[in-house]
């Protein structure tokens, strides 16, 4: 066991999007039709701890945790809405930790900004008609994020959601191939807007590997859930890889070489969002 990890009580663990390995794999339905969950194998670390407000800043992001995925396809509007609500909860839960990470490299408001943004998203969901197709839903969410999230992350996440929404078009039920393309479009859009590439120590370091892993898994004949599991695994690896990097974009530029050694808060928040979208809470 790594001493740096802070053990959480059962209560906190229950609220985590990333339950400890070995915990019961369960299914949960917000619809009437049957669902199933996917268990991601957790080989190396026996007990990984979820991100939380008290976690030391240098803590490794939880890797290889068993994630029950709600990534069944096709993805329709109600399931997408449910996913977005999970994102709101996950972001709230991790807001303090994200803000503390951001205090090291940026201006220390990332968690609070995202929290504000996704609360606004939840309000937006209530306003939108029930028959709003997923694509339009995503675009509206993107615009709401641009308008409500302070700092650079608002326009960046907003762009990602809007681009994914564009790619979805008017399709009512999103299949795995389309989801893969949407994720890629989100990554491309974010890279263009942020003028960033892989390794710049940004959100993209999580998003692009996740998108590529999802796309490749689907191309290799994998189901939506397998692809999602692969995407989350790639996202985690991406987050972990940002630690030694010297920041090339954003406020962390000021720190120069000193930005190395810290996780990028954007990369971590992207993981939180992806896990919440794909998983269950």
């Amino acid at each position, binding site marked *: 066991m790594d001493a740096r990890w802070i053990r959480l009580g059962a209560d906190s663990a229950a609220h985590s999007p990333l339950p400890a390995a070995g915990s019961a794999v369960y299914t949960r339905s917000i619809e009437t039709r049957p669902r199933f969950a996917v268990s991601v194998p957790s080989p190396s670390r026996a007990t990984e701890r979820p991100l939380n407000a008290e976690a030391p800043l240098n803590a490794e992001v939880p890797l290889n945790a068993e994630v029950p995925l709600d990534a069944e396809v096709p993805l329709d509007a109600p399931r997408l809405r449910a996913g977005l609500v999970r994102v709101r909860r996950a972001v709230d839960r991790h807001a303090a930790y994200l803000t503390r990470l951001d205090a090291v490299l940026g201006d220390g408001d990332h968690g609070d900004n995202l929290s504000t943004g996704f609360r606004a998203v939840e309000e937006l969901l209530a306003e939108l008609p029930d028959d709003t197709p997923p694509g339009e839903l995503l675009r509206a969410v993107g615009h709401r994020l641009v308008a409500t999230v302070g700092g*650079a992350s608002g*326009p960046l996440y907003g762009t990602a959601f809007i681009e994914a929404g564009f790619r979805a078009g008017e399709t009512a039920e999103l299949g795995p191939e389309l989801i893969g393309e949407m994720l890629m479009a989100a990554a491309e859009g974010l890279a263009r*807007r*942020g*003028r960033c590439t892989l390794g710049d120590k940004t959100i993209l370091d999580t998003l692009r590997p996740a998108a590529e892993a999802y796309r490749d898994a689907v191309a290799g004949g994998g189901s939506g859930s397998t692809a999602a599991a692969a995407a989350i695994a790639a996202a985690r690896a991406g987050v972990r890889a940002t630690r030694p990097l010297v920041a*090339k*974009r954003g406020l962390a*530029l*000021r720190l120069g070489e000193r930005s190395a050694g810290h996780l990028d808060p954007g990369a971590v928040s992207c993981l939180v969002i992806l896990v919440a979208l794909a998983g269950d809470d």
Partner: protein
Amino acid sequence: MTEGDGESDRPGVDPELDQLRTRLAALEREYRSAFDQAQREADALFAQYQLSQLVASGGSPAELGRAVIVELVRLAGADGGAIWLGETGRPGLGLIARTGEFADQLPADLADVAAARELAADRQDLRLAVLGEDVPASVVALAVPTDRPLDDDGLRVAQLARHELASAFGGARLREALERERHELGEVVDGATDVIVQVDEARRVVRLNPAGERILGIEAAAAIGRSCGDVLGCAVAGGHGEDHCPLAEVIASGGAIGYRETAVRGAQGTPIRIAGGYSRAPSHPGGQIRATAILRDISAVRALEQLREGFVATVSHELRTPLALVRGYAETILHFELPAEEQREYVERIHGVTSRLGSLVDQILDITHLDADPLILERAPVAFAALVARLRGDLEISGDDARLIVDLAPDLPPIDVDIVRIGRVLENLVGNALKYAPAPTPIVVGASVDGDWLLATIDDEGVGVPEAERSLVLEPFHRAWNVRESRIPGTGLGLYICRRLVEAHSGRLSIGDRPDGRPGTRVSFSLPLVADRRRAIGGRPRRTQAASHGAVRG
């Protein structure tokens, strides 16, 4: 598109439907281009936002420069970039940040903006932008890639941010200068040997320098926030009451007090006389009022002044009294027809008084030498016995040598002293003993070894020195009351001179009772033995500076 085109292109198809299709395609193109345009505008807006965020984030010129140049290179799609920034009050611009690849070496310094323009004049691989011409000027160079053009959208964003960037760099320079100035001022305050204490409008301490911590015996952290009267202890030290606080005065008046003497409580709780300068920081609208006191410990100066004043008064008194006598005797001889024997008597009195005057003047000269800074000693190894033998020779003239008993320990090692001056000490002390002890009582000179020191003693059977006055008689012009009453003439300088000369050799001189309990006085003093205890006597004298010297002790 015309109907004719449609008809000629696709004969047989409904021309209206065709027209609609064409319109739809045109609308789609229009939509696409509007969308692309909107995207580019959003990109530019975001780029501008990111640049502003960096610019607003502050930091040193180098930090800001490094962040901004990376951003500009990314914006413009350049291969590399560099920023030069001028400095207020100094000509030229210095390279503060660079990144990426350049075809050749960039100059570390540019003479001026014109030189910067010249640098890029004939080069296709370098794009130069002057951000600001005003002091401090700032110039950006971008390395143009060989395989592609620079990004026009990005360049436009950079161009728009030109003034913002220039003022940000100017601000960074200013912050840097202010920080340096603040640091230097802080060094001055911390390095000062005077107490510097700063208070706010309510006279609560906001700053206390290290000298203040030392002299007042309180740590700055403990002093801050407390009232100035509490920290300085002006009232308990007898300086001034709360109603007469000079800091309150300058806070109220806005003026300054150039010099005011008062007292504060020192580290040991004892009062320290201080001279203070008080001023109030120039109050600017909305600014906080700060009053500063610079306090100098003048207790030593005061004591010295008192001593000098006393010295002058006593010396002039001591000189005037015998002078008046001389004048009186001389006038008597001049104005009265006196018989020869009487005249002779007066002349003898004049002779006696003038010899006393002479020795007084000698002693005053001795003291001025003692106060020379530093006192130079001509040290040489000598046997204490030799000094005593020389003294005995001098006493033979008056016949007092009969009273001198020498009782030295055998095999005394040589001492390392200024022979003339220690000879004077011995002469003075033995002379005192002879003077104050009635004849024919013996004067015993003894000596023994105590560690690295020779301990000499002179015992007499005289009137003795009252215990309360023993340390006082070692000060200038002080004579014990019983000696004053005895009407034996003296200047009150002899013991003082002896003490100073012994102390100049790092030794100690004290006055005490005789060890055998009989009435009389024992004067003891210590002198340094030759360091390596060589018995060899002689050798060349060395000039050394006395260990204790300087002003008259307070």
